[in-house]
């Protein structure tokens, strides 16, 4: 029995329920889409607006759509601390790299290779972050999302596709994948009401 039911496997299953509804795919897709639109329209605030706006909307939708279907579980304090620490470290690293690039750009001392390969490096960093999320949460389809994001820069560098269209294309595909997963989720899990069935406990 101990060997049959591994705690790690159970923990993995619990983590995966967090991504089962496809809402985080939609969040990522819209964020990437927002990035493309911000480059296209030169509205630099768009990614920030998309990120915060969609993030809180997703939580609201989860409460209304997901929890009545598959229930809710809160990770243990240790797990929550570990997840928070990982994202803080990730955020700090990204911020430091961003500041470094901005400073080099600002003082006109950017190396030529950075200017030449900037889209590849930028998309590569975004893809690496998505890969880390895929690895930590063990949700394999996020590797595909990372590949799509990176491909946007590859198409730009070697096929001449405009950089922003790479973001818009990748974001749209990721949103579609998320919507597909959401539809499957909604069909698989009808809403359940605790009331009648659980009345025998009262």
């Amino acid at each position: 029995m101990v060997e049959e039911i591994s705690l790690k496997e159970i923990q993995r299953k619990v983590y995966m329920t967090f991504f089962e509804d496809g809402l985080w795919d939609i969040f990522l897709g819209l964020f990437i889409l927002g990035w493309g639109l911000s480059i296209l329209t030169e509205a630099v605030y768009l990614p920030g607006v998309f990120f915060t706006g969609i993030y809180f909307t997703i939580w609201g939708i989860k409460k209304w759509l997901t929890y009545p279907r598959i229930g809710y579980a809160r990770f243990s304090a240790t797990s929550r601390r570990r997840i928070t620490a990982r994202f803080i470290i990730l955020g700090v690293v990204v911020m430091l790299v961003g500041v470094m690039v901005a400073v080099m750009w600002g003082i006109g001392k950017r190396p030529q290779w950075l200017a030449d390969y900037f889209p590849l490096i930028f998309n590569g960093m975004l893809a690496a972050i998505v890969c880390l999320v895929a690895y930590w949460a063990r949700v394999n389809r996020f590797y595909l999302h990372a590949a799509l994001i990176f491909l946007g820069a590859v198409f730009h560098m070697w096929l001449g596709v405009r950089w922003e269209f790479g973001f818009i294309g990748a974001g749209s595909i990721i949103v579609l994948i998320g919507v597909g997963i959401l539809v499957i989720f909604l069909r698989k899990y009808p809403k359940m009401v605790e009331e009648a069935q659980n009345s025998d406990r009262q």
Partner: protein
Amino acid sequence: MIDSSGEVQESFTKIDKLIHEPSRYMLMAYLYVVEVADFLFLLRQTGMTWGNLSAHLSKLEAAGYVVIEKEFVGKKPHTTVRLTDQGRNAFEEYRGNMKRVLDNLPV
């Protein structure tokens, strides 16, 4: 000093029969990895029926291994379950005993 077979026997007798039941072990395992879970979450994860889940949780609650809290969210009832410290310790002890038993079995 207890020999290997004595150790196995001792570990066998220490095995918590309440947790040993597969459905309850599964419930304890889920509650061990999360801080709190609601009734629906446990239902979906374990694949049990409402009545079955309810009955097993009642037994665990009676033993002091879990705390069941009922509240209303709007007009709908919402039941949350969490492992008590006693339940957490019992689960760890059970796993330790099972491991000892299995490790000492002849291959």
